[in-house]
Each structure stands twice: as C-alpha cells, then as structure tokens.
C-alpha cells in the first residue's frame, strides 16, 4: 500500500486512474473483484475434486455421481414434459403457501405487535409451535389433507408463516414511537396510523421475514412432496429418482430447487429496493 502523509488528505485519495499510488491498475482491478474471484475459485475447486474423485474411482459413482453426469441428467430432465409439470406443481404449491403465510403472518404480526394484549395472549402459543419441529407434522398433515397439493400448501404455510409473523411483530415494535406520537397529534385514525406510519416503519423487517419465509417454504414444499407427492413435483421426482438409485437425477433436482430459491430471493431484493428508494436517493 502507498504511504500516507498525515496532513494531506488529498494524498490519501486515489489518483486519476482510481488506483492508489504504487498499485498497478491490474492489481486494483483484481482487488475490487477479490470476493467474487475467491468465492468462485472455491466452487470450481470443489467441482473439479468431485469430478476427479468420481473418475478415478475413489468414490462409488453410483452414489455420488459426478458433475458432468449431473449436468447431463439436468439437461435431460429439463427438456422433458415431466419437468414442466413438476415445476408448475411445486411452484404453485409454494406460491399458494407463501401467499397464505404472508397474509396471515402480516395480519397476525401487526395485531400482536400493535395490541399488547393480543401479543401477550398469543405469545406462548406462537413460541411453542415455532419451536416444534414442524417437518414432523407432515404425517399428521397427510392424515388431515391426504396425498396431494393441500398437504404441500399446509406445509409451506407452517414453515414460512412464523418468520413473517415474528418479524412483522418486531418490526411494529421497532417503529419510532415519536413518529407514532406525531401522527396521533395530527389526529390520525387508527387505520391511518397503521397505514402511514406502522407499516412503512416495519417494512424492512417484514421483508427480511419474507426472505426467511422463502427459504423455509422451499424446504416445506420439497419435504411435503417427498412424503405426500401424488404424481408430479420436483420433490416427488427426486424421491422417485432416489428409489431407483439415480444419483445424478437427485443432484439435478437439488440444483434446480436452489436456483428457484435464488430467483425468489432476487425478486424480493428488487421489491426491497423499490420500497427503500428513499434510503439511497
């Protein structure tokens, strides 16, 4: 790094090329991208090691497959009609479940956050159900809703409603009390207060709750399909692949589900940016 003279702040700044003195532009370019470069490098190393280990016969290919086999299986799978069907089944189950949990989570979270007594009343119940391993409820849900989409939706709901609810509640608690006071002094009605102060104030935390809900909901939908898938769905197909020892197919499913999660989170990020434009302007 360049040496810095204490009384000349201009010297601490970068030169015209954007590089500190004594640093080549190439090195600077690398420095800027270092997190991406190193992160990607790790992934590549893991894939290469996996491939080499599989090809050299150090591991049983039947169980661990190899990156090239997975890529091939994925391509084969994506081009089938079954994939489109699986995707729409899983996607719709996930979306219905998530929407339900958003509505319920936000409404309940608002009520629990705003009305202290509602909060006290429901606190133990919510904590209890949240702390329980909800995945273990799938068999019970099958008992109630049978094999098929309803069980999936219920599972997604159970998995994703809590992060939304709890974050909405904390979000409401974190709203600046002075703003509430201000709005009340302006004669805001209760609904106006919630619409103009409480919801916008709680929004950042509601959205981070939604982010958690997306991750949890994906787990919910896949697990439900493992156990209660009827004829299609990403989880259903993976389960079927596992029963016929098709490891590449399993990995392909895994990659696709992760990709769905990434896409959903990115969409949420766009939404977040839309709502928080004021922070950056």
């Amino acid at each position: 790094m360049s040496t810095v003279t204490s009384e000349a702040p201009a010297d601490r700044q970068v030169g015209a090329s954007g590089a500190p003195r004594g640093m080549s532009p190439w090195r600077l370019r690398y420095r800027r991208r270092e997190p991406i470069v190193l992160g990607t490098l790790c992934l590549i190393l893991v894939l290469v090691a996996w491939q080499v280990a599989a090809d050299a016969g150090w591991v049983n290919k039947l169980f661990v497959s190899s990156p090239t086999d997975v890529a091939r299986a994925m391509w084969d799978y994506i081009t089938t009609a079954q994939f489109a069907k699986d995707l729409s089944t899983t996607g719709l189950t996930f979306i219905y479940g998530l929407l339900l949990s958003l509505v319920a989570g936000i409404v309940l979270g608002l009520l629990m956050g705003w009305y202290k007594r509602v909060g006290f009343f429901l606190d133990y119940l919510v904590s209890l159900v949240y702390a329980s391993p909800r995945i273990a409820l799938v068999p019970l849900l099958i008992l109630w809703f049978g094999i098929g989409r309803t069980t999936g939706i219920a599972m997604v709901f159970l998995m994703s409603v809590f992060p939304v609810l709890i974050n909405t509640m904390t979000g409401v608690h974190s709203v600046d009390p002075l703003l509430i006071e201000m709005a009340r002094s302006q004669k805001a009605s209760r609904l106006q207060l919630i619409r103009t102060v409480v919801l916008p104030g709680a929004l950042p935390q509601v959205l981070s709750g939604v982010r958690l809900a997306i991750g949890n909901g994906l787990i919910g939908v896949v697990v439900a399909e493992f156990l209660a898938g009827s004829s299609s769905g990403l989880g259903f197909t993976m389960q079927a692949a596992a029963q016929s020892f098709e490891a590449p197919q399993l990995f392909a499913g895994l990659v696709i589900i992760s990709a769905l999660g990434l896409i959903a989170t990115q969409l949420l990020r766009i939404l977040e940016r839309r709502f928080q434009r004021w922070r950056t302007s």
Partner: protein
Amino acid sequence: MDSELAVTAATATPTQQRTAPAAGPLKLEVEDVGIGYFSQRHGSFFEAVRSLTFNVPDDSLVALVGPTGCGKSTFLRSVCGLLGYQHGRLLVDGSAVTGPRADCSVVFQSPALMPWRTVERNVGYGLELRGTPKAEVRDRVGHMLDMVGLSKFAEHYPHQLSGGMQQRANLARALANDPVLLLMDEPFSALDPQTRDRLSDELLRIRELTKLTVLMVTHQVDEAVLLADQCVVLSRGPGSVVEGVMDIPLGRGRTVDETRHQSGYGPLVRQLRDMLRALEPAESASGGR
C-alpha cells in the same frame, strides 16, 4: 426601554387561583390542571403535574420554563391531547381538550419526520390525513416551505437535510394545519447556537406574519427571554404549580440579536435564572410528597 419587571411571586397555597395579565381573548386556559399516568418504568402511578393554573392570551408567545423533571413536557402532551389529565380545566380556544385536535399543532423536540416521505409529503401529512384535495395540499405545502425557506428541498428526503433544515420542516408541518395554537417542546434544543438563532428569528418573523399564538416549553432561560412575551415559571418536581408569571417587555418584532443588545435583556435573564435557582432548595425543604 422599559425594563421594569412584572414578576408575580408565587403564592404558598397552590389552590389560590391567579390569571396571567390577559390582553383580549384567551387561546389557552389552564385551571387547576393535574396530570398523572401509570408509568411502566416506575411500575406505579406517576404524578407529573399537581395543580397548574395559567392562561395564554391571544397573539402571544408564552414560554413555559422550569427545572428538569417539573412536568412541563408532560403538560404540553396533555394540551395537544396525547395524554389525559386527571382534573382541572384545559381549554383551547374556548373548548375543552379531549384528544388530539386539528387546530392545535405540535413542533416536537426532534424533527419526527418520516424518513420514507419527501419533505413535501411530510409537511403535507396532516392535510393528507384530513382528506384535503391534492391541489390544495400542494398549494399550502408550497406556501409553508416558502415561509421556512425550504422550497428548494421539497423533493428531498429528511436524511438529506441538516438538523436545522429538518427542524424547519417540522415547523412547516405544524404550520400547514393553520393552527390557532402552536405548541413547541424545546424545539431548538438539539441545534447548534447559530442555527438556533436563525430559527428563532424565523419563528418570530413567522409569528408576526401569521399572528400565531405560541406556547413553548424550554429549559433555557435565555431562549425564553429572547422569544417570549411572557414566561410562566413552574416549580420543581411532581406537583408543579405556577411559581410566577414574568412579562418580557422587550417589544414585538425583535430579532434575537437586537434583543441581546437591549439593556433590559441581561437583568431579565438574571431575574429568571434566580427564580429558577430559588426553586432548587425549595425542593429539598419540601417534605410534603
């Protein structure tokens, strides 16, 4: 310059009623008002104001001064309807205060602007709540921003403004409602001295312009003398009564700088400071509560 002080000494019995010298109708009438609330922090009932009696005449700027913790801010919250009072009469413009009202605006100590709204939409918030037509809101807000010198910053967000500008927006929002009574809770205490002076002048100018009646809470003696026509002095501690009412006969339409150079300014400040200081031992002597 007339620098004679019109100080009414506090009477020993808080029940005795006294009214401030009134010129014309009263904008705020306070009669034997007592305020208390259940405090979660203390886990008990907290008596903030025991018996308070004074009046704010029309078209005047009254400063409410008193030692820290004398309940002056609490009292202001009651006047703007955010906190109920236990007994007494509290009338704004002749009608009893029963809750927040549109004709009574508050300028809070901190700007209390919504960070996700532009300055313009913050200032128009009260009008928006009342369902004022959009065009009318825009006109009125534009006018208010003009008055406080923020026209250029209408589209800015609060975090892009300096503390002084945020406080101007706070003032503009209060004025936008066209209140009959403006309540200010140590509005300039968080600002640096220069900005405070500028905003004080601004307040005095706007006040002359709009003939607004103002009740201002402050714990700064010099601020009270610089701005007010009349100072109401509260005694210390829970159960504050009016310790005295002090007229500030320094004339209207003055700037803070002009006031500082008036011969009457120094003695008034000293007088008020002495009054406040005299309250301190009185607190330790009173074993009544």
